[in-house]
């Protein structure tokens, strides 16, 4: 009993301590709300006006889609220090952009940075890296695991206006791009001096993903990532009687035909697809409206329910192998030991992941075709941080790496990135042959597929909602819940992630 008293006393103590510090608490919170109000209050300042000027909004105009107002940029209270002006500070989560910049940005001072490419293909650089004008490049790398990258970036961007150590650039991915694009921390690309002519050769969908609600472009990418359907030639020959990409495509050109082939595959002892999520992007990229409508309600698109029904069918009929994306088995299914007909893969996936998994045994044994619907998968975008004290350098990097045809052609040749430059890629497509794909010219297919991609329905909630949707419906595929329960489970998860979203009645 004495212990009971002790614990009660402890609880009391904590409450008292709580009361003591409560006086600190509200102070902090007030500040928070103040900055929140500032955002709303300065709605009509410079940033807001600028926003409306540029046109070119191709965004989804389907009735009811959420078009979140672009938040006006926050006035910079503090200027960058002299030291900050001499430093180009770039936020990223991996080394991909680093190696592109080092290898292909002409103003990168390879000598002073001690840059070379090591025997294993990895970058070798000295302690400090510089541009030719003496600006030092500082990379702030935070892993994406546990959302750490976005947490870090959000914290630091929030402090940008009052900091004299300015962030100059940061990188983002498609699935959460709009969160930043419509937020107050990005400097529009046109403000940096990039013109429509500069950007003319970029694929439209790569611009749509980073266009804010006012139609202003807020970022650029050096890659385009159109997706195709990669299939095993040996299995195609055996089951479909041909491995010719055109003829195979004719049998896969819409979902009904695709499903028919799936049945044939099953009858012949193969799987059509490896896992539950394989086809997801082809459906989610072709929705008729965005995830969230203008009332902040989650609306599940019919096309996504089509994916659910199809995948349920595939699972029940044994058309897939029950894997999940990136599982060991999913990777193994792509090797010679696999019994899976094909995989939905985009540019990088074919050149690196699939080729790697296929190994020597399946060299030349894969081919690609467009598949039933156009889609994209992946990509990294470059944004200029509002308040950057090196806007000219940032603009020059963007121009060089995402608008310069020669440089981009060079990137494609040296790294196999499919670059975001129509004329360069079309030029390349005239005469190309991939050894891995048995001599097929898949670049030509990419150039044909890329213009068909529709990214206008992208939204800031995509990453979280897509993940939860797939997770919730896996239970349905496995048969442990019915469709309605799975849907309810999804809504629940969605609202935990995004408390401002409601469920459409």
């Amino acid at each position, binding site marked *: 009993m004495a212990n009971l008293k002790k614990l009660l006393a402890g609880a009391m103590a904590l409450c008292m301590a709580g009361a003591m510090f409560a006086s600190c608490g509200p102070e902090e919170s007030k500040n928070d709300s103040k900055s929140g109000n500032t955002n709303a209050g300065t709605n009509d300042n410079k940033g807001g006006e600028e926003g409306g000027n540029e046109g070119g909004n191709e965004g989804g105009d389907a009735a009811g889609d959420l078009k979140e107002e672009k938040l006006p940029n926050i006035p910079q209270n503090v200027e960058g220090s002299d030291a900050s002006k001499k430093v180009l500070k770039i936020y990223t989560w991996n080394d991909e952009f680093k190696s592109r910049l080092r290898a292909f940005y002409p103003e990168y001072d390879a000598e002073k940075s001690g840059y070379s490419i090591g025997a294993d293909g990895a970058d070798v650089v000295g302690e400090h890296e510089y541009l030719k004008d003496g600006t030092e490049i500082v990379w702030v*790398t935070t*892993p994406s695991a546990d959302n750490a*990258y976005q947490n870090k970036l959000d914290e630091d961007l929030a402090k940008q206006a009052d900091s004299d150590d300015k962030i100059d650039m940061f990188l983002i991915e498609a699935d959460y791009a709009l969160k930043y694009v419509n937020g107050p921390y990005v400097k529009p690309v046109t403000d940096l001096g990039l013109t429509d002519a500069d950007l003319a050769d970029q694929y439209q969908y790569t611009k749509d993903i980073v266009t804010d609600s006012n139609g202003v472009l807020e970022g650029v990418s050096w890659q385009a990532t159109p997706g195709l359907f990669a299939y095993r030639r040996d299995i195609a020959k055996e089951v479909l009687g041909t491995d010719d990409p055109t003829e195979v495509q004719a049998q896969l050109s819409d979902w009904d035909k695709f499903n028919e082939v799936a049945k044939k595959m099953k009858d012949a002892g193969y799987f059509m697809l490896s896992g539950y999520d394989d086809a997801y992007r082809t459906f989610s990229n072709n929705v008729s409206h965005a995830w969230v409508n203008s009332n902040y309600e989650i609306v599940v698109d019919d096309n996504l329910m089509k994916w659910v029904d199809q995948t349920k069918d595939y699972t029940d009929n044994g058309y897939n192998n029950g894997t999940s994306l990136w599982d060991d088995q999913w990777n193994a299914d792509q090797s010679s030991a696999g019994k899976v007909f094909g995989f939905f893969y985009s540019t990088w996936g074919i050149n690196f992941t699939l080729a790697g998994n296929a190994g020597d045994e399946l060299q030349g044994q894969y081919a690609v075709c467009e598949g039933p619907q156009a889609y994209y998968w992946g990509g990294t975008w470059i944004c200029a941080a509002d308040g950057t004290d090196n806007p000219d350098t940032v603009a020059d990097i963007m121009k060089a790496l995402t608008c310069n045809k020669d440089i981009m052609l060079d990137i494609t040749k040296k790294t196999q990135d499919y670059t975001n430059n129509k004329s360069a890629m079309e030029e390349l497509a005239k005469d190309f042959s991939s050894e891995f794909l048995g001599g097929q010219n898949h670049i030509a297919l990419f150039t044909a597929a890329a213009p068909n991609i529709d990214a206008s329905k992208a939204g800031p909630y995509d990453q979280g909602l897509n993940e939860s949707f797939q997770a919730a419906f896996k239970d349905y595929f496995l048969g442990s819940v019915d469709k309605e329960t799975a849907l309810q489970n999804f809504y629940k998860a969605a609202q935990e992630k995004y408390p401002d979203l409601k469920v459409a009645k």
Partner: protein
Amino acid sequence: MAAPVDAVGEMSNSKQLLIRRVISYTVLTIFAILSLFPFFILLINMTRDTNSIQKGFSLVPGSYLIKNFKTVLGKHDWKMLSSLKNSLIISGLTALLSTYFSALTAYSIHVYDYKLKKFLFTFILMIMMVPTQVSALGFVRQMSDWGLTNSFIPLIIPSIAAPATFFFMKQYMDSALPLEIVEAARIDGSGEFRTFNELVTPILKPAIAVQAIFTFVSSWNNFFIPALILDDKNKRTLPIVIGIIRSADYASFDMGAVYMAIGISIIPVAIVYLILSKFIIRGIALGAVKG
């Protein structure tokens, strides 16, 4: 089961003892194998490349050991060696501060009588219950408000207040530190602080060794907070670097390197553990102190 056996029946007793020893060794060996199995997988995968790792497990090592090793240590952007050093500094100091000050605090509660004692003791116990994740983001924001981004201070100094370590020390003192020893030291004219440092800490050695390992390991493996506090590439800790290797882009994604990095991160901990485990055993000889 434990300790000495009755003296009745010498003959059957020694036979019984033999059987017990055989059983013990068998069970212990099975568990040893179980415990080593994850390491076995780790070691095997350290010698393989991404594609073969993903094709499934194999008992036969691959031929990528040296390449993986070179990749992990050599890749400039990862700074593996400096992160090893940082992790050593942070975890070492954390273990040191945490055990010393927790012992000091426990000593205060154990030996002295003062008004707030019971209250403070209970208070610390309550605190122990709070999951660390609860206030993590608040903590990070506060540290950055104090300008402690990229400083090791937020990763080391808070360990001075380690309720769980404190609680262990307190429990250990209850069973191994009689107040008579302190009284005797006072009679000999030893100052309170000196008594603690020179007389009490040696008695606490086993407890200190045990807690030093625990603290070291948990600090060594901590990812969440350091990832949000440290962004300078020269200040990163090992788990951050492993995180970076894991979130590599498609072209340089390297499972072999991930396993290698995990392997490298385990070696120093194992060494620290080996050193301290001797300490424990020697320290335990001091168990003569009455419980």
